[in-house]
């Protein structure tokens, strides 16, 4: 448990402040995000954004990453408004986005090369440390296309962790993997998080996955994308996605979400 410093109200690690995003489509503007406010304190370890497609969860993550600009509102990290992408917020994408012209080790080194004040030796040590952590030291010279989907995401995780970001943003990183690989990664990920505590924002459409990994879960609803409800999960770790507790929580959250959606639909339809 990280102690909560109640006396000095420090700025939250991450604050999304009334963020809205509009996309221009052929049939006019579409509101992707409406007035999103999300606060992640240092103690909250893993926050999951869960919602069906179209709820803007990936867009929100891109905005936090600084890859997209919101129409209104702002994002603050440790009290500082962000300006574009930054090394303290690393992203793990749905596809690995590893560079095929570099081998696994060089991919991990890419971000370290851009970090000032790191010597050649330190870079190498750090890169190998993280490759070891994700269990791919043996494959450090492998070309990217030689790796399996799960291995690619492990390299991508090592690449994202290596520059030591304070926030790790994960955009459905396991959506394209098969179930067995995914389950292995859930336990590996929890083990890695235990070793290197990070503030993680994890986007997924899978409620069970969110409960397995998250400390807090923010349910989002589509058109326009909104955060509907937040849940805190206090199940002991490591959690098993197939456990009865995870399943029970998932049912509860899904039911709550369904009721909420029905209430919204019946509430707004007469207008």
């Amino acid at each position, binding site marked *: 448990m990280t102690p909560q410093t109640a006396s000095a109200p420090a700025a939250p690690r991450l604050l999304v402040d009334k963020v809205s995003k509009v996309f221009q489509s052929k049939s006019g503007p579409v509101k992707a995000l409406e007035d999103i406010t999300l606060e992640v304190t240092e103690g909250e370890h893993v926050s999951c954004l869960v919602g069906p497609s179209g709820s803007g969860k990936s867009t929100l993550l891109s905005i936090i990453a600084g890859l997209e600009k919101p129409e209104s509102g702002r994002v603050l990290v440790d009290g500082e408004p962000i300006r574009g992408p930054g090394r303290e917020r690393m992203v793990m*994408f749905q596809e690995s*986005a590893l560079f095929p012209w570099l081998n696994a080790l060089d991919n991990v080194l890419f971000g370290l090369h851009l970090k000032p004040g790191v010597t050649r030796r330190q870079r190498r040590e750090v890169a190998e440390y993280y490759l070891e952590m994700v269990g791919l030291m043996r494959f450090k010279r492998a070309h990217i296309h030689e790796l399996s989907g799960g291995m690619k995401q492990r390299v991508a995780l090592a690449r994202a962790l290596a520059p030591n970001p304070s926030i790790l943003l994960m955009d459905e990183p396991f959506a394209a993997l098969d179930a067995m690989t995914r389950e292995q990664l859930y336990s590996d990920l929890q083990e890695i998080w235990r070793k290197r505590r990070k503030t993680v924002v994890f986007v997924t459409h899978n409620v069970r996955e969110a409960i397995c990994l998250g400390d807090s879960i923010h349910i989002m609803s589509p058109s326009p994308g909104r955060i509907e409800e937040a849940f805190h999960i206090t199940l002991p770790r490591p959690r098993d996605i197939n456990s009865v507790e995870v399943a029970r929580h998932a049912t509860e959250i899904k039911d709550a979400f369904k009721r909420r959606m029905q209430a919204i639909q019946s509430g707004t339809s007469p207008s």
Partner: protein
Amino acid sequence: MRRLAAVGLFFALCIAAWHLVVAAGIWSPVLVPAPRDVGLYLYGALIDGTLRSATLVTIQRLLIGYFLGLLGGLPLGMLTAKSEVMRDTLGLLALGLQTLPSICWVPLALLWFGQTEMAMQFVVIMGTIWSVQLATASGMRSVPPIYVQAARTMGSRGLHTWLRVILPASFPFIVTGMKQGWAFAWRSLMAAEIYVTILTGFGLGHLLHYGRELNAMDQVIGIIIVIIVIGLLADKILFSPVEKFLHARWGTGR
């Protein structure tokens, strides 16, 4: 070794079939010479030095023209990929000029440069530059945006992104463009050499042309074989290693 034996056997069979067809006497030997006659011509041309000097003249023209074409085409392609405006202007111009068969440049080249080496090289450059430019531009544009996004989150900006991400990511496409450019350069040069006599050097195209003038079918076929062999060698020596490298790295290609 087995593969080499298969290649040898295949071409030996081709020559044997050719020999049999000629031996059957269906066509006049003036029109279809025996493989032996073609071999004798090639041997003779090799001994008296005409083949060597013609090949050197041709290859020199080809290499100079091709590399000048690359020198122009690669930066033009990068420029074309820069923006929509560039694509609509430079890109459209290149597309138009690429569709023009490069032999069409010969009259213009002759009027501008006279019967000089420069005229020859101009035609080769015109054959190369546009296809290289277009392939480079389309390669740069097809770089997955996620690579650039990933690089930006790791702190890469501007020139660094360009040199370390966009350029290597588009390398396979650029190689395809270079290969295409090479094929166009080779075709344009042969067309130009057959069409135009230039006193500063007789290339393989001229030998082909004079073979026709002299009704020497053994020469015509012999030179065609030499041209094919040079094309094959260029592919194997210049491009195969690069393609193997790409295949190993990117996992693409054959």
